């Protein structure tokens, strides 16, 4: 459909009506580029949105990213696994769905039948349940079953809202995703919680990896004896593991380089705040040795609060606002695994 010849023809056709050739060419090369890129993205379409602290805008981001992708013609499923605090439906302005993940866990109803319409074309929602399900009651095998079924929702973008905290279930879901997105505000508590969250996730990933290779005891023993070995941080643990057991070096290096986190800064109030994103990227690399990408930011705007109160999604109702544009920018960055471009002028 998007062959070069076609584009040229279309541009030529429009030239007779519109003299602005440049605009036309730009528009088409852009979409050509997108179509081309999308073919490459076969996997990598399970996105998890977390970050540790509550109230940073995880649910708002989940709904907005979902709407942006759906409006761009992609099939999207949102999953609210913020069990105990599921409220994603409110951000979409719909009532709490009657079917929820409880039905999946208790009755084995497939995920595809739990998805409800959201009022946005191409986008459906699967919700957690506030009343009947305590997150502690989910067994490990149930969790694995859920992950397996999520991965089977193929040819769709699955956007998972994790909720706050660093509970094991939350972290496992975060690790399961193809794209791990951490949301934070430019303030010290959110930043602190984010470090904690990412560190926990990394530690768990390393432990799981070493377990599959049969070295489970080593890392746990080392961590228990951390005072004796003078280990204060995760980085020092990794270093002393490498020193003591040289054969673990390759495994650990691979785990570290595979671990990638995308950062999104929410509620920024000055251009100075944007720098926090690139600073954290640097610190993650130099302090934990992991790759963090600063995908983008959203500035503070009352329109967000207003749209939530009015129960009408910002991406639909204030689609021309700066916030909506910024959401579009970082969603595309996430899609194509790009970094935020920061211009100084």
């Amino acid at each position, binding site marked *: 459909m998007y062959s070069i010849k076609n584009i040229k023809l279309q541009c030529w056709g429009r030239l007779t009506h519109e003299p602005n050739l440049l605009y036309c060419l730009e528009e088409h090369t852009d979409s050509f580029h997108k179509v081309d890129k999308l073919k490459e993205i076969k996997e990598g379409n399970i996105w998890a949105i977390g970050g540790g602290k509550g109230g940073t805008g995880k649910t708002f981001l989940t709904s907005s990213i979902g709407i942006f992708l759906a409006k761009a013609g992609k099939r999207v499923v949102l999953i609210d696994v913020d069990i105990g605090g599921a409220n994603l439906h409110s951000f979409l302005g719909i009532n709490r769905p009657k079917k929820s993940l409880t039905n999946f866990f208790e009755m084995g109803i497939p995920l595809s039948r739990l998805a409800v319409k959201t009022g946005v074309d191409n986008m459906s929602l699967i919700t957690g349940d506030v009343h009947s399900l305590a997150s502690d009651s989910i067994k490990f095998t149930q969790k694995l079953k859920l992950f397996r079924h999520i991965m089977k929702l193929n040819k769709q973008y699955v956007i998972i809202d994790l909720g706050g905290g660093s509970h094991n279930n939350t972290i496992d879901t975060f690790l399961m995703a193809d794209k791990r997105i951490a949301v934070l505000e430019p303030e*010290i508590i959110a930043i602190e919680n984010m470090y904690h969250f990412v560190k926990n996730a990394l530690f768990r990933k390393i432990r799981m990896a070493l377990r599959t290779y049969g070295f489970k005891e080593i890392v746990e023993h080392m961590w228990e004896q951390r005072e004796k070995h003078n280990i204060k941080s*995760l980085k020092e643990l990794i270093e002393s593991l490498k020193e003591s057991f040289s054969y673990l070096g390759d495994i650990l290096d691979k785990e570290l380089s595979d671990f990638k986190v995308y950062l999104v800064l929410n509620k920024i109030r000055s251009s100075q705040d944007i720098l926090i994103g690139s600073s*954290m990227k640097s610190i993650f690399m130099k*302090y934990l040795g992991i790759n963090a990408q600063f995908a983008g930011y959203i500035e503070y705007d009352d329109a967000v609060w207003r749209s939530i109160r009015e129960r009408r999604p910002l991406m639909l109702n204030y689609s021309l606002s700066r916030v909506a544009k910024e959401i579009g920018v970082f969603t595309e960055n996430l899609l194509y695994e790009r970094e935020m471009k920061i211009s*100084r*002028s």
Partner: protein
Amino acid sequence: MSKKELKKYFEILEISPDSTILEIRNAYNRLKKLYSTDSVVISPIADEFSKKDRKEILEQVEEAFKKLMESLKGRHSSSPSPTGDFASDYDPTAEKTEEESYSGSVLKQIREKMGIQLFEVSLDTKIRMELLERIEDEKFDSLPQEVYLKGHLTNYASYLLLKPDKVTQDYIARYRAWKEGEKEKR
């Protein structure tokens, strides 16, 4: 310096190997500031990320910057030797007021305050060094035609993080005034 070493230095500064000199300098300034001050992003991990760790990082950053600059200077042997310190936190947008007019000497001043050598500008903007010199010295009689001059000025101004429109407008106005004067003389 081997390619491997160069790559390592670029990695320490967290930039890609095809970065311009200005990007190298910006990365260096940014990292130096980040790891030498107690900011909101550092303090939550202050207990695990000690002053000693940070000092090591700062030393690495310092070394990487120095080595990269040396290697780039080696590539351009005709350049004058470096003077003053590398680091300059000078921000042209902060000091410059809209009222002032951008003459060649003002551009030169700004460039020198940023601690940037002429050959660095030349390397990044691909404008010949002699031409840059002539622009700064306002040797109007040996400058190219106005259209070309405008292009060079835009290029140079954006390299110095100035507003290209304003710089071009000011400079061209001076150029035209000189041209008028020349006509009258004849």
